[in-house]
């Protein structure tokens, strides 16, 4: 078992509708020494319009991203999936990865008919080095140097934190350079504060986080709002009925008696209050949790562990509290939109396990056989994704009825005038050219115009 550090460079910040252009990963041993590495790129998909700023930051020109000699997105993701699978079991780490790279990777795997949950399969774990750095900066100031921006605010950008800590980070925003920098930063964090490092690794699996939450009557959680850490002692009250990976907790000072006497509307306002209300702990997102017996006394609000445990028992045993929390949550939560686009359907429900073997057959078969194989998929998302993949990879093998519909559907991504489209249209990208530095605007505008508005 080992660590896998990885990073993606993408066409933008939309984790569902943008795509990976460059992927890098390094497998290390448990001392963080490199054992193996993977670096791969792919070409732009025809229905994805890159954000000009994303290309500028990544240092990838539109012409380079559109190079037909590059592997397709599907070919790159085959390589990524096979390598990461071969490197498992492992603990997957990136920088700001839980909210970005992990989501991008999951969607890329899903859209290419692979198991989207590869990094959180049993035996694997996942953790975010940004959370580690923020936690150390909060708990053990001095173990790592916090970067300061010109305006005096703290910065946890990878390039800034590396520079502040004397870590060589040449070529920031190249996937492999960001991976190397993240490994160096983790080594520094481990050497500076091995207690937090150990706790960080412990929170990398769902079962361990569940054990922490359910095994302790109260626990210290450090919630980050921007770059500011807020310590809060929380008590678990219920499982979120709409998310098996989410535990519902309340701050230990939650005014339970007042809450129980409220109308559902008022109770909802209190429950959803960011400062006083519900704390949702996602078991699979490496939350920063610290048992009270390990917590620095300065973060416990002047109360002893024994007092906190007594307060936790009183809160937990408030008659009907958990049931009322669930009732208010149910009645006051906004309805979830029903997804209509494939990109939005990953979390609609878990993958149909009946398709596991059929998907392996699909990837192993010649393209000529795949249209027939894909008709046997039991999950309708897989059937639709297979049709799209076939259109992108081998349009000559598509059903004639399908090809026009698929072409029109993906073409709509570029030209739609819908004000609220979830993807980036050509018009939006052209508009965003203005955000580029003046000296590169003309070149980028020419490239976008050549590709998208040749007439």
């Amino acid at each position, binding site marked *: 078992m080992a660590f896998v550090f990885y990073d993606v460079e993408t066409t933008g910040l939309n984790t569902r509708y943008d795509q990976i252009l460059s992927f890098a990963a390094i497998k290390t041993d448990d001392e963080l020494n490199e054992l193996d590495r993977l670096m791969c790129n792919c070409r732009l998909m025809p229905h994805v319009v890159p954000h000009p700023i994303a290309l500028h930051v990544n240092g990838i020109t539109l012409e380079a991203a559109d190079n037909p000699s590059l592997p397709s997105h599907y070919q790159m993701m085959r390589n990524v999936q096979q390598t990461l699978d071969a490197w498992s079991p492992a*603990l997957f780490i990136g920088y700001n990865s839980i909210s970005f790279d992990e989501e991008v990777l999951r969607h890329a795997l899903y859209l290419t008919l692979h198991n989207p949950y590869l990094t959180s399969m049993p035996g694997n774990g996942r953790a975010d080095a940004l959370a580690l750095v923020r936690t150390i900066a909060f708990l053990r100031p001095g173990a790592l140097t916090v970067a300061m921006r010109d305006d005096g605010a703290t910065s946890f950008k990878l390039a800034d934190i590396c520079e502040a800590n004397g870590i060589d980070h040449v070529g920031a925003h190249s996937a492999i350079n960001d991976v190397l920098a993240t490994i160096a930063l983790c080594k520094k964090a481990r050497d500076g504060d091995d207690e937090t490092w150990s706790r960080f*690794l412990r929170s990398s699996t769902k079962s361990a986080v569940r054990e922490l939450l359910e095994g302790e009557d109260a626990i210290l959680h450090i919630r980050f709002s921007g770059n500011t850490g807020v310590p809060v002692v929380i008590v678990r009250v219920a499982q979120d009925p709409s998310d098996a990976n989410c535990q519902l907790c309340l701050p230990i000072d939650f005014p339970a008696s007042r809450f129980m006497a409220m109308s559902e509307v008022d109770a909802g306002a209190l429950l959803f209050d960011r400062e006083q209300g519900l704390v949702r702990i996602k078991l699979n997102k490496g939350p920063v949790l610290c048992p009270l*017996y390990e917590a620095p006394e300065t973060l416990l609000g002047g109360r002893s562990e024994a007092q906190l445990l007594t307060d936790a028992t009183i809160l937990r045993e408030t008659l009907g509290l958990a049931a009322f929390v669930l009732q208010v949550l149910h009645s006051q939560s906004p309805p979830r939109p029903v997804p209509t686009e494939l990109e939005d359907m990953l979390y609609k429900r878990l993958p149909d396990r009946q398709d596991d073997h059929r998907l392996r057959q699909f990837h192993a078969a010649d393209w000529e056989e795949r249209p027939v194989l894909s008709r046997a998929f039991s999950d309708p998302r897989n059937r639709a994704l297979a049709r799209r993949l076939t259109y992108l990879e081998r349009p000559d093998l598509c059903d004639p009825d399908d090809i026009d519909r698929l072409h029109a559907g993906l073409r709509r991504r570029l030209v739609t005038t819908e004000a609220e489209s979830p993807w980036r249209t050509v018009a939006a990208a052209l508009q965003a050219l203005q955000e580029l530095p003046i000296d590169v605007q003309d070149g980028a505008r020419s490239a976008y115009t050549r590709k998208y508005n040749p007439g």
Partner: protein
Amino acid sequence: MTPEFQAADVDAAVEDARALIQRFEIVAAPVPVERIARRLGVRVKYAPLDGDLSGMAYIADGVKIIGVNALHHSNRQRFTLAHELAHVMRHAPYLENEVHLDRGSLRRDWLASEGTDPLEIEANAFAAELLMPRTLLDAAIDGRPIDIEDDEVMGILARRFRVSATAMRFRLIRLA
């Protein structure tokens, strides 16, 4: 030079575990094994350990350290922690000069208590008593007849003590 360990003293290992249950006034399952370890001054470190390595115990600069595989299920981590705690408590002279590594599946670990390595026999007996103290187990069963083939009952008991159903079965068989 590391002294040679002659024979397992299972009764003494069990008594050590019971003493901890009493000392830390544990009156309900699950037993807070990590809290106990920390209170004893043991440092617990989590890491994605290599291969089937479940845990390790060693002493560095006089500090007793237990390593636990961060990628294992939490029930297995609890067993590992209890098992390694036995090593640092009972077998310290054998840890002064070397890192003690523990490999193998939970099932093999439990079966090892019937094996031949006296260190492991003691550590497993200690872990079983610490995680599933006889007193708390008797209270949970409350005199009812238990069918160890009944997956549902085993699951309920295992969840209550935060051990695997396999570990609970072995424990009940041994106590019977």
